[in-house]
């Protein structure tokens, strides 16, 4: 009994002491921001955002139902991966990111409604989201009125700039001009046939392409330009026209499921993409999943990112993405751009030393992300990214093989002079 009592008196005290001593070296090893030095909430959040001493809330706003779910699923996955990685690395200003996900349901008014909820009710410090220009246009007034911050991941038609939006995809000139110059130079292409789905992005992009071909490329001309309703599945007529006009390059901006029909019929009509040059800016690895590698092998795509990019950042990103979402997932251009959103926001907040929207917006220009899977990006004064333009060649296995990249980062220019 005496022994027991003795132990009861001394042992817990001794154990506590030992544990405390053991914790000292561990404490010094923890990242500086993880506690103690994390700045006080009253300092970093003067406008009542959802920031506590340990947590900061952001919103994810994409369509996970409806027709756009096919495209936006990848963006959601990438954003969640980035948030998880940031949390594992200590969070933002010592605070873990918590996210609230809302479903835009492929319905533009619904996007605006949900954006308002995320900003007004949830007080999100940033929102990652939207895909179509229509949804972005719908939420834009909401973000400006309630002063929120949107990280928008899709390559798009440009002609827009807002202090409340960071555009992590390419605007039109970053994707189009370098690609056309490349095809003109390396394939000696002189005649172009422009194709697209019938809405704002393909029409604006083709307008820029046409201006560039006719005014800036020596002796080049556009031999045809054609648009199809979204979801169109019969391309036999235009394929016949292509056969008759024999353009050097088919320039295709067809989106979504129509692509499957287009490339299958192209192949069935005997147009061999290893002989006929085709350049697209709308088919990523995601779309090839549905088209089938055998139908599109040989086509060129002009983007800023391909899953096959050979650099350490990208290898780590692809491995982490597959570990989180499954071996069979593929990563397209927009998925990567969506992954940049949370990271750029974290870097900007830390540069600004504050979560306040105005300070984040003001600190954004010049923020650089060296860990970007595409290599390296920097935010421009116009809130778009400096990034490289690349051309990839589609392979049988559904991946792109890099065949060209610009030597330098391309300056974003959402309001290009002489192209409107």
């Amino acid at each position: 009994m005496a022994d027991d009592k003795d132990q009861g008196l001394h042992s817990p005290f001794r154990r506590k002491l030992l544990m405390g001593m053991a914790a000292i070296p561990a404490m010094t090893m923890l990242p500086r921001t993880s506690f103690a030095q994390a700045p006080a909430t009253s300092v970093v959040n003067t406008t009542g955002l959802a920031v506590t001493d340990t947590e900061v809330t952001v919103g994810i706003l994409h369509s996970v139902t409806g027709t756009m779910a096919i495209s936006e699923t990848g963006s959601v996955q990438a954003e969640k991966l980035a948030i998880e990685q940031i949390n594992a690395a200590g969070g933002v200003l010592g605070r873990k990111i918590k996210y609230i996900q809302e479903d835009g349901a492929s319905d533009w008014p619904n996007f605006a409604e949900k954006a308002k909820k995320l900003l007004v009710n949830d007080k999100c410090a940033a929102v990652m989201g939207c895909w179509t220009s229509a949804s972005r246009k719908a939420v834009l007034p909401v973000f400006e009125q309630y002063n929120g911050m949107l990280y928008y991941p899709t390559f798009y038609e440009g002609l827009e700039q807002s202090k409340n939006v960071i555009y992590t995809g390419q605007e039109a000139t970053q994707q189009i001009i370098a690609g056309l110059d490349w095809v003109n130079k390396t394939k000696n292409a002189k005649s172009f046939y422009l194709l697209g789905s019938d809405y704002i992005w393909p029409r604006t992009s083709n307008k820029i392409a046409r201006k560039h071909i006719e005014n800036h490329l020596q002796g080049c001309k556009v031999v045809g330009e054609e648009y199809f309703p979204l979801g169109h599945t019969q391309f036999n007529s235009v394929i016949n026209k292509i056969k008759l006009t024999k353009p050097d390059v088919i320039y295709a901006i067809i989106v979504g499921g129509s692509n499957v029909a287009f490339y299958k019929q192209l192949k069935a009509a005997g147009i061999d993409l290893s002989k006929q040059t085709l350049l697209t800016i709308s088919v990523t690895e995601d779309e090839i999943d549905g088209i089938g590698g055998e139908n599109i092998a040989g086509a060129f795509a002009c983007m800023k990112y391909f899953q096959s990019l050979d650099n350490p950042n990208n290898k780590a990103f692809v491995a982490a993405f597959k570990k989180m979402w499954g071996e069979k997932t593929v990563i397209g251009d927009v998925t990567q751009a969506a992954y940049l959103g949370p990271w750029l926001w974290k870097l900007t907040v830390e540069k600004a030393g504050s979560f306040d929207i105005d300070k984040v917006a003001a600190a954004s220009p010049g923020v650089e992300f060296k860990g970007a899977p595409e290599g390296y990006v920097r935010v421009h004064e116009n809130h778009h990214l400096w990034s490289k333009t690349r051309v990839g060649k589609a392979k049988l296995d559904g991946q792109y093989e890099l065949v060209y990249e610009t030597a330098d980062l391309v300056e974003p220019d959402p309001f290009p002079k002489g192209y409107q």
Partner: protein
Amino acid sequence: MFGDYSIGDLGAIFAMQGFAGLILFSVYVLMALGLAIIFGQMGVINMAHGEFMILGAYVTWMTSSAFQAYLPSLFPGYFFVAMILAFIAAGALGMLVEWGLIRHLYKRPLDTLLATWGLSLILQQAYRSIFGAREVGVELPQWMLGSKQITDTIEVPINGIFVMCLTFLITAAVAYVMYKSRWGRQVRAVVQNRVMAGAVGINTEKVDRYTFGLGCGIAGIAGSAFTMIGSTGPTSGQLYIVDTFLVVVFGGAASLFGTIASAFSISQAQSTMEFFMSGSMAKVLTLLAIVAILMVRPQGLFALKVRK
């Protein structure tokens, strides 16, 4: 608009557009045949028709994956197995739906519209949960790809010819069943006078169920065929539904022959116009023409003469 082409070119254009139109015609007939049976014979507005097609497409995709994994040597012939399985799957689901939903709504066409529209949403979400939100790629055997060279400028895609043959066979089979077989006579009897047909000993409930199943089964085959030319995703069925109704209504709902004639005129008009103007414009003009004709002939091109 003809000025840019030589006479030889124009000849080739019309020949190729004619073929393109014929392929489009086959596609329209395949889409509309199942709906024409259900809508024409039973008066049910089946808004879930596109989803039955996509079921066929998914069955084809699963069959192709299974053949690739387990029977790679038989892969070239998988498509025929897939079509049969697609017919069975879509037909079985159709009969289930008829039993659980449609039979309570006969004689209330607007209610069938709402009920089947709800059904289409349920099916879409089910596909999304089961197969994922992304589109799936159905791999085709090598012999179905490529095209047949006829002259220097005229080439006909092989899968187009395949769809044409398939359409011909199915249409002939349906026409035989409807107009020559004992069961077809029962169907038509039930359509014309349900009470009298019941009184002479026809099991009208059974006839209804099999008719609905047949219509959905044909939709399944259509979906299977469309994996050759279109996409397979949870909402792909929506792409077809408007065109399908267009063909059926324009043709005169209850007439098989009307469906074929209407598919032919729409597809040829569409195909020819598409060559000389944009795809969107051709579609608008086709629709305008159909509206104008329907204003003159509200019953469609060919309607059954029914005493009212």
